[in-house]
């Protein structure tokens, strides 16, 4: 039985599942049931240093750059390998390959062209992020984002981070205005 975190909660992955090295980060939300202009959600990952900034463009993993150079983070996109059942997007992380100067990996979901289409996370239901051990296939921890999103167009679902030599996961659930661009700026990437 996987653990479920509340917003802001964290969990030591190394303690919960000592065998954990390769993980799959599954992100999902309720399929939209209404009609109208297209509604696209994109997942991305940011590899961040101790200051909470990317080291360079290579640390921004998204639909146009699916893999970090050292192979630590890979956007699975639609290529599910059975583990991601129920996930809308999946990102693979190999903890053993994460460069030593990367302290944190943030998992973000943004709404494509949200402002032009006047869309926001208030329209997104039942979002979640979950961490799955991709070797054993077991779900380690899960965070169901409570339904209080509103006008935000970008949302940090959760993050993996180093703490005293171990990897932890934090349930973030923090929304931002300004979409993907604002997220990039926040993480020190000026597109």
């Amino acid at each position, binding site marked *: 039985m996987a653990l479920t975190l509340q917003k802001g909660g964290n969990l030591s992955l190394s303690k919960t599942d000592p065998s954990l090295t390769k993980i799959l980060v599954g992100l999902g939300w309720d399929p*939209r*049931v*209404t*009609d*109208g*202009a297209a509604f696209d959600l994109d997942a991305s990952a940011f590899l961040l240093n101790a200051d909470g900034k990317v080291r360079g463009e290579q640390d921004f993993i998204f639909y146009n750059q699916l893999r970090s150079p050292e192979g630590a983070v890979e956007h699975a996109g639609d290529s599910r390998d059975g583990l991601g059942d129920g996930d809308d997007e999946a990102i693979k992380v190999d903890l053993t390959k994460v460069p030593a100067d990367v302290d944190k990996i943030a998992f973000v979901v943004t709404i494509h062209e949200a402002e032009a289409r*006047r*869309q*926001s*996370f*208030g*329209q997104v239901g039942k979002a979640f992020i979950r961490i799955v051990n991709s070797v054993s296939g077991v779900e380690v921890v899960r965070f169901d984002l409570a*339904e*209080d*999103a*509103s*006008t935000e167009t970008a949302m940090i679902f959760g993050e993996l981070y180093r703490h005293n030599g171990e990897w932890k996961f934090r349930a973030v659930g923090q929304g931002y205005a300004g979409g993907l661009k604002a997220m990039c700026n926040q993480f020190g990437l000026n597109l």
Partner: protein
Amino acid sequence: MLELIRGQRLPLSSITHSSSVEVAFDIQGSLALDLACFGLDAQGKLSDDRYMVFFNQPESPCQSVRLLTPTTFGLSLAEVPAGIDRLVFTAAIDGQGTLRQLGASRFRIGDVGLPKVACAFAGEIFAEERAVMLVEFYRKDGAWRLNAVLQGFNEGLDALVHHFGGEVAEVPPAPAPAGHVSLEKKVAAAAPQLVSLAKKAQVSLEKARLTGVRARVGLILDGSGSMHNQYKRGRVQEVVNRLLPLAVHFDNDGQLDCWAFGDLPQQLGSITLQNFHDFIDTDHGGWRKWELGSRINTEYRVIEQAIEFYRRGNGATPVYILFVSDGGIYDSRRIVKLISEAATLPIFWQFVGLAGRNYGILEKLDDMNGRAVDNCNFFALDDLHDLSEEILYDRLMEEFPGWLKAARAKGIVA
């Protein structure tokens, strides 16, 4: 005043601490929109029909939701029963058009007579939607919150009702096809004045085990001079009203194909839940202006026209035609020939004699030999009001199921 945008949520307590809340809509543009409030359970379903508040049912039980004016709702949130988790305010287009044509509209929410938040919306945020959820109140952690939803469905009110659990929860006598919305709810949403008829029609359909059947429905009206009084007294319009729930049930488009005839036949417009209520008086200029030639009876021409119509674009979908006449039949031999030959087509003819006599061949068609299947039935009424609506529906559905079965067995009907 605080302005909301689409998708914005906020706790109601940030607006008011009063339990009495007013929700007012200001709809602009040429679209005719029907507003409603759906009180939904925790699963987002309309489990209690009394919590659909609209012009035909302007109050929920306990009066917790009331339609005060055509565009203003009053809420007594403390009175909303615990089983109701969400109050969703919706707008659906009555008639043609899409929400893209909506003018600069807004809703305002606040204390009675004192709005505290507003939300502007217009056609530019929509595409092909025809029904939309505008704003909802929902319970979270014991408190009410608001969400400016502003999202909807292209398929209009049907899709909205379906979204709120339009499938009836009770066990149906026969399995209904997936996505089937109960007749009553379809009608309740679009033409509430027909709800009681729809209920009665539903009972007859269930008795005749026709609830899962798809069919087109046609109506052929005698427009000859002797029918004048029936038109004038509104009896023909009543025939339309009574037949429409059947058409809505059988036909996914919910429309009734319609012809009138004197010496000449004329195909009229399709009758729908949107236009039925004054159809006889308004379609093609109203019944007095229909171009039927001399106002005498020439049945065979209209029968030919209807056969041709369904032969062209219908495939093997069953067709139920109600043929209303006050008698005085012309050229019986041709009628016999046409109906006999049409027995190989997926068309069932229900002849109804109305307020006349001398039905001649119509009475005998039912018993003709030499047809692939028995494809017609006849009964007569001196006055439409002689039969209760319940019995009328039973009579209308008397031989149709038997024909369907026989026609299916012979491969006439899909």
